[in-house]
């Protein structure tokens, strides 16, 4: 049941969106953060063959079955996380980037992230004044079980604070910000280590950006329902 082929016709010069019928797994090996279990990963391969041509394109991605939930705790004001239904005590490290000249080699990512894992951390927070980290960063977070808290690019430079006072309305081009945000989400969304998107560092983005991010990152209604012992409630 983990192999499926569908036939479809795509009109000339067009772009379509296609959803596969869901694939069923019985007791899949779950992906767990560092210290809670194994980081089980499945290899998902999508190929498209075109009649009269052969293989036209191929996509491959390591995928982890996991469910991450979080909410703000009313009593403490802190954010509480659950992974696969289990509460997790977050031990996190703050991250800006691996190298100030952006020589972001895989070897360096592997070393830095494994170091976080060896320190018994289970989360890395990517600060909004740094990078939207790269797929290689996320790959090693997938491997070593580091959850990632990824912020967008809102900091003290764009919130009306500081001396001199910064632009209170974020970057000048809000459409460009959202274009970059949407593309970044598409780049990183399939990594099991990706735990949380955050609008920015220590504040809320400008209203229109915040609304757009919330709108675009909301759960599809199909996934909003919580799980319980007998299935979707």
């Amino acid at each position: 049941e983990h192999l499926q082929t569908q036939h479809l016709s795509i009109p000339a010069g067009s772009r379509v969106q296609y959803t596969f019928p869901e694939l069923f797994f019985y007791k899949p090996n779950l992906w767990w953060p560092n210290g809670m279990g194994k980081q089980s990963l499945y290899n998902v391969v999508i190929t498209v063959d075109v009649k009269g041509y052969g293989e036209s394109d191929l996509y491959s991605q390591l995928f982890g079955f996991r469910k991450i939930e979080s909410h703000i705790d009313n009593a403490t004001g802190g954010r509480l996380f659950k992974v696969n239904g289990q509460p997790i005590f977050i031990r996190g490290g703050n991250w800006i980037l691996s190298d100030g000249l952006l020589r972001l080699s895989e070897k360096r990512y592997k070393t830095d992230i494994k170091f976080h894992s060896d320190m018994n951390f289970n989360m890395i927070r990517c600060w909004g004044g740094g990078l939207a980290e790269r797929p290689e960063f996320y790959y090693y977070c997938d491997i070593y079980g580091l959850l990632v808290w990824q912020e967008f690019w809102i900091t003290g430079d764009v919130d009306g604070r500081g001396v001199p006072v910064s632009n209170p309305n974020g970057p000048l081009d809000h459409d460009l910000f959202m274009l970059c945000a949407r593309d970044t989400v598409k780049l990183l969304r399939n990594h099991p280590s990706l735990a949380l998107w955050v609008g920015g560092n220590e504040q809320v983005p400008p209203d229109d950006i915040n609304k757009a991010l919330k709108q675009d990152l909301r759960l599809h209604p199909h996934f909003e329902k919580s799980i319980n012992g007998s299935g979707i409630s």
Partner: protein
Amino acid sequence: MATAIGKTKLHSGWLGTRDRDVTVTGVQLTTTHPPSLGPTSPWVEAVVPGTVLATLVKSKELPDPFYGLENESIIDIADSGRQWYTFWYFTTFQCKLLGTQHLDLNFRGINYYAEVYLNGHKKDVPRGMFRRHSLDVTDIVRNGENLLAVVVYPPDHPGSIPPEGGQGGDHEIGKDVATQYVEGWDWMCPIRDRNTGIWDEVSIYVTGPVKIIDPHLVSTFYDNYKRAYLHATTELENRSTSVAECSLNIQVTTELEGNICLV
């Protein structure tokens, strides 16, 4: 032999130099006047992916800013002007396409915008540090050697750092959609080129008539994680001039032990 379907990274063989030292056009660079290294040439081996500063450090034109107080000896873009850190990159790559194949030239990150020249043809890469650029160059690429030049411009608002320092300098960098630590922070000295450059992966990507774009994989769980479903959605683009009859295949495997896989 035709180029295989898939990605080939272009991470070696790059040359680079400052814009002020380039005396020919991008069209000429990628047709009649390709650059070369030499004692009188302004071109040096470039770090791609990497920043302008990374290349200038590699070529020993500038000291490593992260040793001692060497950063103080590197001119800041606020004082030099944006053209000082406007930088040209050049490389070549081999390619052989079949008649029905397509080729994309992909940049996963450029800071802040660029002009791309391939075999004398110009393409614009618009602003924004955190966006991918995929250029369909099927009609431009030729079988054999291809000449590629890229001129990268710094952020529009690199800003300046007050003499007394301060978190985020004058905050001008925040007007652009770019990384913001580069004007200096309470934990970091200013980055003199504001991380200008081809800072992330560059690749060419060969497909047939139909291309897979940004699949989305999501799982749902039932019965206390006994049952799980994988939901996969993808975009597909048919670039040919006729209807494409496609077989779309998804396969999920897991490595049990060693090299044994379960399908």
